[in-house]
């Protein structure tokens, strides 16, 4: 099966600083990626997505960068707030017949007030 992994399992940042969460994927055929945020006791919540024909996409305070050459994704959160504390997952669409999403292990982000 596909392997989607994260470089750092935990990340602590000061409130107001920028956060960068990285993700490596292994399936070069994957054409769609989503970043999810999961707070304790809740299901994953969509943050931002990107298709393989793009290398950057911006949302509100978040930016996703895609480097297909090295099969790497990153999520940048600007001016990190305490409410951003959660586990962040990247999910890879394997571009199969049913478009299943494969999730990485996740990075736990802690924002220090």
């Amino acid at each position: 099966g596909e392997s989607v992994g994260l470089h750092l399992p935990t990340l602590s940042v000061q409130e107001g600083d920028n956060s960068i969460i990285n993700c490596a994927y292994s399936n070069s055929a994957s054409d769609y990626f989503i970043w999810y945020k999961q707070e304790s006791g809740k299901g994953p919540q969509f943050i931002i997505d990107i298709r393989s024909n793009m290398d950057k996409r911006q949302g509100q305070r978040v930016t996703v960068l895609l480097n297909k050459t090295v099969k790497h994704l990153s999520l940048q959160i600007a001016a990190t707030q305490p409410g951003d504390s959660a586990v962040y997952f990247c999910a890879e669409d394997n571009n199969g017949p049913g478009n299943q999403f494969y999730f990485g292990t996740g990075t736990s982000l802690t924002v220090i007030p």
Partner: protein
Amino acid sequence: EAGVAQSPRYKIIEKRQSVAFWCNPISGHATLYWYQQILGQGPKLLIQFQNNGVVDDSQLPKDRFSAERLKGVDSTLKIQPAKLEDSAVYLCASSLATQGEAFFGQGTRLTVV
């Protein structure tokens, strides 16, 4: 818009017992997913439905797990008999089409003792 509904929220059973989880997806969403999330890991896809047909169940342990979506709306996931290693959060998600973001429910936390 109502989200994905799951019940129960929590369930504790003894090993070798059976258990069932219920999911009601977002209205109009043709695609429904069941994921298993073991503590400290990312969600793992168990089964994907498109309307009432199975798209992918390659990672479903079919000797003990079963799922159905008879009318193409609600779905149930059953485990019989349960093992200790089945302790996890079972997440249901739905999407409008086979490609696009999946919306997750809050999950059912299963503890097998």
